[in-house]
């Protein structure tokens, strides 16, 4: 069967009885069995649970017909979760050998909410262990490959989630974005990736990486679908104290987009740069005013990020002692050890002021840059990564080079603002290209409107790699 590529198509097919939920699930699982050996997007496939959930969907449709969609807005939507999301009764590893046989006793808020909205869980996806990485190569269970061209990386750390959408192993997927880990793999795999405002989607039940930066995001093939998922996952849950229910803000009737000159850095790939300028032209033709803005502290974002983030990592990974669950600390992989030690160093006596305190101050400067820019514009258009996907192994031996791959995404996390990665085509060699829209805190609606405008103006048709 030809699988539907959007939520709307999926639900229309179910309504018109073109297919049953059980048939969609069977098709996805068959595709995973057939193609995932070469991609390694999944760590666990939850076949039994998926068929049970599909049978429930089909029963609901049988009994209440179209009314079922009012009660369950994402009815029949298959979802894959980065293996950082706790799923009750289904193994959750964080991509690390420390948790290779850990089975959680409860589910994350996001998992609960999507299930209640009618989603069908197909499996848990591969990722850089503990979400530490920009290529997927730091997974303790082997790297994920880019479905478009398997000798290239899919990006990271939510590698398997992005790859699963590109390879059409699931309709939607979830991931986490601490320094770009949703936007960058979405960009490398040619799918839509949403990183919401910090404190809008609950982190409860999601294995923590760096708590002042972690945000929980979504992968889909269209902006409209990302919006529909976010409608379900956002808002207070009584468990995560950082959450607020965002109030819908009045949108300016005439939107203005800023182009930050500091994001056009030395070494920015020519094709990436061209694709950004093309996207800019699309918006301009749609009547959006484009102006240049300046974010002068952008060049320090990587240094701030690689102090604050490892510091918080060293604290969050301190709890893994192998006593209550999981293996002991000897099971940590190389990158986790590196970040724990780096974080411990910048927090240790004598270095706290020089590194950690200094980084927190420069973080304020980065936030002020954005605040000033957003006084003038409604959103910022920028590249996600300085280059298209790179080859597996290319940066694997040089941690600093790998860290620099995050250079255009980390500032958004330091400022706690939302970002939306949108595909915009392919390089001459057939690798995905795209851009990100950044907005002020709680401006998801503006980003969705702009993203939908772009996809409409370009008559965007989702493509799958396999």
């Amino acid at each position, binding site marked *: 069967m030809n699988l539907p590529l959007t939520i709307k198509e999926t639900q229309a097919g179910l309504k018109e009885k073109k297919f049953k939920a059980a048939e969609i699930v069977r098709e996805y699982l068959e595709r995973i069995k057939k193609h995932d050996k070469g991609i390694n997007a999944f760590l666990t496939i939850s076949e039994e649970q998926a068929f049970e959930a599909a049978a429930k969907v089909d029963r609901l449709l049988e009994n209440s017909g179209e009314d079922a969609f009012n009660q369950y807005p994402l009815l029949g939507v298959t979802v894959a979760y980065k293996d950082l999301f706790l799923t009750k009764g289904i193994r959750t590893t964080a991509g690390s050998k420390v948790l290779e046989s*850990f*089975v959680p*006793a*409860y589910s994350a808020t996001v998992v609960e909410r999507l299930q209640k909205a009618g989603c069908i869980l197909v499996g848990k996806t591969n990722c850089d262990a503990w979400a530490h990485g920009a290529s997927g190569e730091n997974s303790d269970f082997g790297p994920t490959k880019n479905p478009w061209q398997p000798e290239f990386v899919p990006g990271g750390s939510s590698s398997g989630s992005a790859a699963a959408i590109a390879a059409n192993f699931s309709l939607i997927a979830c991931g986490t974005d601490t320094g770009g880990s949703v936007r960058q793999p979405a960009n490398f795999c040619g799918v839509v990736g949403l990183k919401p405002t*910090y*404190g809008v989607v609950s982190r409860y039940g999601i294995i923590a990486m760096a708590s*002042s930066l972690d945000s929980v995001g979504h992968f889909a093939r269209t902006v409209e679908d990302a919006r529909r998922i976010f409608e379900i996952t956002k808002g207070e849950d*009584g468990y995560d*104290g*950082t959450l*607020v229910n965002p109030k819908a803000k009045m949108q300016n009737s005439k939107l203005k987009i800023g182009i930050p000159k500091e994001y056009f850095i030395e070494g920015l790939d020519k094709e990436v740069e061209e694709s950004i300028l093309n996207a800019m032209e699309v918006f301009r033709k749609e009547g959006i005013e484009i102006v240049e803005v300046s974010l002068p*502290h952008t060049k*320090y974002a*990587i*240094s*701030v990020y*690689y*102090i604050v983030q490892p510091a918080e990592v*060293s604290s969050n990974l*301190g709890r893994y*002692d192998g*006593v*209550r*669950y*999981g293996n002991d*600390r*000897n099971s*940590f992989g*190389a990158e986790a*050890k*590196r970040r*724990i*030690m*780096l974080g*411990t*160093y*910048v927090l*240790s006596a004598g270095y706290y002021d020089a*590194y950690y*305190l*200094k*980084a*927190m*101050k*420069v*973080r*304020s*400067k980065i*936030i002020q840059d954005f605040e000033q820019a957003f006084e003038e514009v409604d959103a910022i258009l920028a590249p996600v990564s300085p280059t298209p996907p790179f080859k597996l192994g290319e940066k694997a031996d040089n*941690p*600093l080079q790998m*860290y620099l791959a995050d250079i255009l995404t980390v500032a958004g996390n330091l*400022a*706690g603002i939302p970002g939306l990665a949108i595909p915009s085509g392919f390089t001459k060699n057939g690798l995905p290209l795209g851009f990100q829209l950044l907005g002020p*805190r709680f401006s998801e609606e503006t980003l969705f409107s702009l993203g939908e405008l772009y996809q409409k103006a370009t008559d965007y048709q989702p493509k799958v790699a396999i």
Partner: protein
Amino acid sequence: MSKLTKKDVEHVASLAKLSISDKELEKYLKQLDEIVNYIGELNEVDTESTEPTSQTTGLENIFRPDELKPQQSLSDEEALAGTEETHNGYFKVEAVLTERTDK
């Protein structure tokens, strides 16, 4: 910025309860030194009159009533399900004290 030494790396590894081999020590020394050098660039930024940011929500002191909600709590069995090392409903851990040998 000063150069990282082997002793520094050994020290942070022990603070973080990580055991690393001599070979790893060499590797991490080089890599961490490179990273620490890079992040030292922040010294260029004038932050004399800048307040530090530790989080971006603008919220402070979020309280909730300290109530026991049995339906939201894990049972003993669930809480202990992650290990086989249990004893009478407790986690079993390695002894942290040693017996005197001079008695």
